[in-house]
């Protein structure tokens, strides 16, 4: 699905990605983990073409990303911080994105799922952080694309919505989609992900299943296994 070779990205003198290689399987949930500032978001934004890498090659579905934009038709993206134009109403924003994509959308189903109906005619600047995140989720999931990229999908959500989100992600996975997730909630990651990709110093330090991670670190608990990697590397 996503094929990355020798990716380099510097912001000024700060090296964020340093020769990263990654090949994702055709379907399944892949969690991208790593300490703060390890380049998770930069990696995701490079796949989306929002960040322009200095060196390296990214292919999505066999299509090169550099200087192209059409491949984004097959990606659903959930940004980390739900920043929306504040003077638009929720419904207007949803309609606008639908119009831009010009694709079949299942927005009503998702609005029902996240109980957003009463907020549709409110301005985005008046929404709480959690409600904004729900709008964010609707915008992301409504197009049914084969590749889904979620940057911190759990932030600001209440427990009920969190359970709904988890079910939604599982359902999408069963359709045979590739889902890339970053999150800081370790039991969320442990529960849903098929593979763990661990970033450290701009490279992939570990790439395997949760079980493999536990055995390789000799820890029984997932959270401790992650902590183990971090303390061993003094990161």
């Amino acid at each position, binding site marked *: 699905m996503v094929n990355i070779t020798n990716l380099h990205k510097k912001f000024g003198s700060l090296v964020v990605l340093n020769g990263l290689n990654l090949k994702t399987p055709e379907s399944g949930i892949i969690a991208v983990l790593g300490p703060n500032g390890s380049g998770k978001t930069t990696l995701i934004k490079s796949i989306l073409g929002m960040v*322009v890498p200095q060196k390296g090659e990214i292919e999505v579905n066999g299509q090169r990303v550099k200087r192209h934009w059409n491949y984004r038709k097959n990606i659903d993206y959930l*940004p980390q911080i739900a920043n929306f134009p504040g003077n638009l109403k929720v419904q207007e924003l949803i309609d606008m994105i639908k119009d831009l994509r010009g694709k079949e959308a299942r927005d009503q189903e998702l609005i029902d799922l996240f109980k957003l109906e009463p907020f549709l005619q409110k301005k985005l600047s008046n929404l709480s952080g959690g409600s904004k995140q729900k709008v964010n989720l609707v915008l992301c999931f409504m197009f049914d694309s084969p590749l889904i990229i979620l940057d911190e999908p759990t932030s600001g959500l209440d427990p009920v919505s969190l359970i709904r989100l988890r079910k939604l992600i599982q359902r999408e996975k069963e359709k045979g989609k590739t889902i890339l997730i970053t999150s800081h909630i370790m039991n969320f990651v442990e529960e849903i992900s098929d593979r763990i990709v661990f970033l450290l110093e701009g490279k992939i330090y570990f790439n395997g299943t949760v079980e493999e991670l536990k055995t390789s670190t000799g820890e029984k608990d997932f959270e401790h296994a992650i902590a183990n990697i971090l303390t061993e590397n003094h990161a």
Partner: protein
Amino acid sequence: MLKILKYSFYDLSRSLWSYVYFFFYLLLGVVLLFLNNDLSNAVITLMNVIIILVPLIGTIFGVMYFYNSREFTELLLAQPVRRSSIFLGQYLGVAISLSASLILGLGLPFILYGIFQSGAIWDFASLLVSGVFLTFIFTALAFNIALSNENKIKGFGLAILLWLFLAVVYDGLFLLSLVYFQDYPLDKFSLVASMLNPIDLSRILILLKLDISALLGYTGAVFKQFFGTGLGAFTSIAVLILWVILPVWRIKYISAKKDF
């Protein structure tokens, strides 16, 4: 790109500032016409206002819009849309809505006053054309500044400085150099120097159209000789177009390389 343009335009059409700008010109037009009671005089006064104000509004509005729509831009960047379409669409949205405020705000009172029955219609038209050119030029320059500076305060500062330089300081330097080098032939120099500043260029175009090149003073004759001919008019329009194209091209160029 048309979709982006549509949404930028829609966004701006709901912004209070577009209307403030429109009503300002409406008021200015009405007051000048009905107090002055003379079309040509009103056009000259308007020229002085437009030459200074349009670049200022274009610069400030352009920078402000760019920084304020950052969220919108980030949202669009993840969509299947070409990068250049996003920025050019936003640029055209700002430039067209500002131009519309200018044309409607000034046009309405002049139409009511009876510009179509008057010989001053072409003077007025040249005024509007210069105004639209200045809007497109300075909005593009503002977008350039905003794209190159993440820091809003710095962006605003640079935008104001740019306006101050082209609208005020440039003329001062120009005059100083004319005085300093008065022993040398200066016609070529002054011709080129005013071509390099879109504000000066528009001013000269309007003044020549109004046939009051005496106002230009020292270099008036040179300008009349050059700009008065077909080649002169053609060159000056071409330079104005170039002043639009170059910054727009740079918007496309920088935006393709920028990280978000």
